[in-house]
């Protein structure tokens, strides 16, 4: 009788299921998978990182919602954007001085793949083709968010009177 396959997915399999990895070949996937340090779970309202903290990792969100926010003395906290399952959280690990610019807080139960940022940077330096793929993905994420931010700045729902 055939048994049920209950083995845990490999790091490469976990990574391959995330939109961040779409288009990477097997060798690239396995090199990025070597930088995967685990799967993190965050409870509702748990702080994932705080602004000013050292940005050591890239989070690839598998499920859940995360608020990027900034403390606004006198008026609590302002949420500048939200990220969701399938998004990549954080690019501060890629650029000096490797410090988070905002706070990140889980809005509900959230699960993320955790990639060691320093290791991934090293891989990118050693293998420029892999580096191109990684930086291209981060750039796309940044471009999408820049576009969304521009629309927010445009105040597309009309002038406040």
């Amino acid at each position, binding site marked *: 009788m055939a048994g049920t396959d209950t083995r845990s997915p490999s790091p490469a399999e976990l990574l391959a299921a995330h939109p961040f990895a779409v288009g990477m070949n097997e060798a690239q996937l396995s090199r990025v998978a070597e930088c995967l340090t685990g799967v993190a779970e965050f409870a509702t309202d748990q702080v994932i990182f705080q602004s000013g903290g050292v940005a050591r990792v890239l989070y690839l969100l598998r499920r859940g*919602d995360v*608020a990027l*926010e900034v403390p606004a003395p006198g*008026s*609590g*906290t*302002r*949420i*500048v*954007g*939200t990220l*969701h399952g*399938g998004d990549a959280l954080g690019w501060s690990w890629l650029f000096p001085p490797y410090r988070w610019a905002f706070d990140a807080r889980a*809005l*509900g139960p959230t699960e993320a793949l955790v990639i060691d940022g320093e290791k991934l940077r090293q891989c990118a330096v050693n293998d420029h083709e892999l580096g191109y793929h990684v930086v291209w993905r981060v750039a796309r994420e940044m471009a999408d968010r820049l576009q*969304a931010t521009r*629309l*927010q700045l*445009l*105040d*597309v*729902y*009309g002038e*406040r*009177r």
Partner: protein
Amino acid sequence: MQPRQKILVIDDEEVVLDSCLAILAGGGYDITTATSGEEGLRLAAELSPDLVFVDVKMPGLPGMEVLERLRAADPTTVAIVITGYATVSLAVEAMKRGAFDFLPKPFTPDEFREMVRRGLERRAEKLAQARERAVSEAAGPFPGAAAGPMAPVPCRVLGRWDETYDTVSLALDPPPGWRGFRPGQFNTLYAFGIGESAISISGDPADGSRLLHTIRKVGKVTESLASLQRGDVIGVRGPFGTPWPLGYSAGRDVVVVAGGIGLAPLRPAIHELLANRDRYNRVLILIGARSSADLLYPEEIQEWRGRFDVDLQVTLDSATGGWRGRVGVVTTLIPRAEFDADQAVAMVVGPEIMMRFATAELLHRGMSPSRVFVSMERNMKCGIGLCGHCQVGAKFVCRDGAVFGYDEAETLFQVREV
């Protein structure tokens, strides 16, 4: 059995006509050809074709004029311009004159078949819209308006309440003989001694007991309307304008995208979608607002969100720490929304910038522009295409819209000021 769809090809080059016939042979269409504009117009009058291809460069009557006459004779005719002299300016000119699309010669069989498929799809949408419009025209105007379409009928205010800091809703006692409205239509509300303003009807079309309008205070007239109290009397004309394509949307996924005050003209459509939920496939309601204080109808949104058969998402431009939902503009909801772009219908309302970007995201998902409907409420005044305030090119927004397929609205969006 469905009648065979009729296609007319007008081109002075016999070889082109033969190719078109060969490409579509066996496709189940009735295909007729004409070698001149004059012959084409005669055949169009005789056959009422669903789709017409018109060559621009022909001896005798030029293609552009044929195009205009075709559209004047039957606005539901879908015409596609074909020419060997493909230039952007020509394409723009053709679209301005009502062409659905532009096919440069030489074209491949696949390109031609794809154009036929899209053209016939557009024809089905236009016929469905015309049917819905006929239903609404049969219902109104109400007999009280016998003094003429420009004479407002007095209506009593049943109630007035604040929706947000700059928006109020007015409930009016429907005038005698009021026969209802179709979602997407608008009335003009007249504040006596001040002026009138075109305002979408924002209530439940099934509720004949009151006539709801949500008004944003943006000028003297709307400020005056917003300050009315229970028992006051205003003038009403309507209902005017094309309805949302709810009949055409039956059996399809429906994506409703509302930005800011745009939720008001969409609310009647949402009511009708939910009241007849089994007629539609997936129903998605994507709502964007500047902040939670700007969000219209929060209680109803909560109620809709509670339904298992609706995917409702709300996103705010800016929020404080207590907000549990999404933050970002409404366009960011579209890439992740689960719908079948090949057959879905979208209904989009908000300020024009928002509609442009939302439509761009929907097209990026693979939707056909002809299945993305927007409501353009530019400068509407008389409601009947008389005063010319809302004229854009050959169209009067109030009479030919305000609901347009994006294939038509795109050229209107390009006109910066009316």
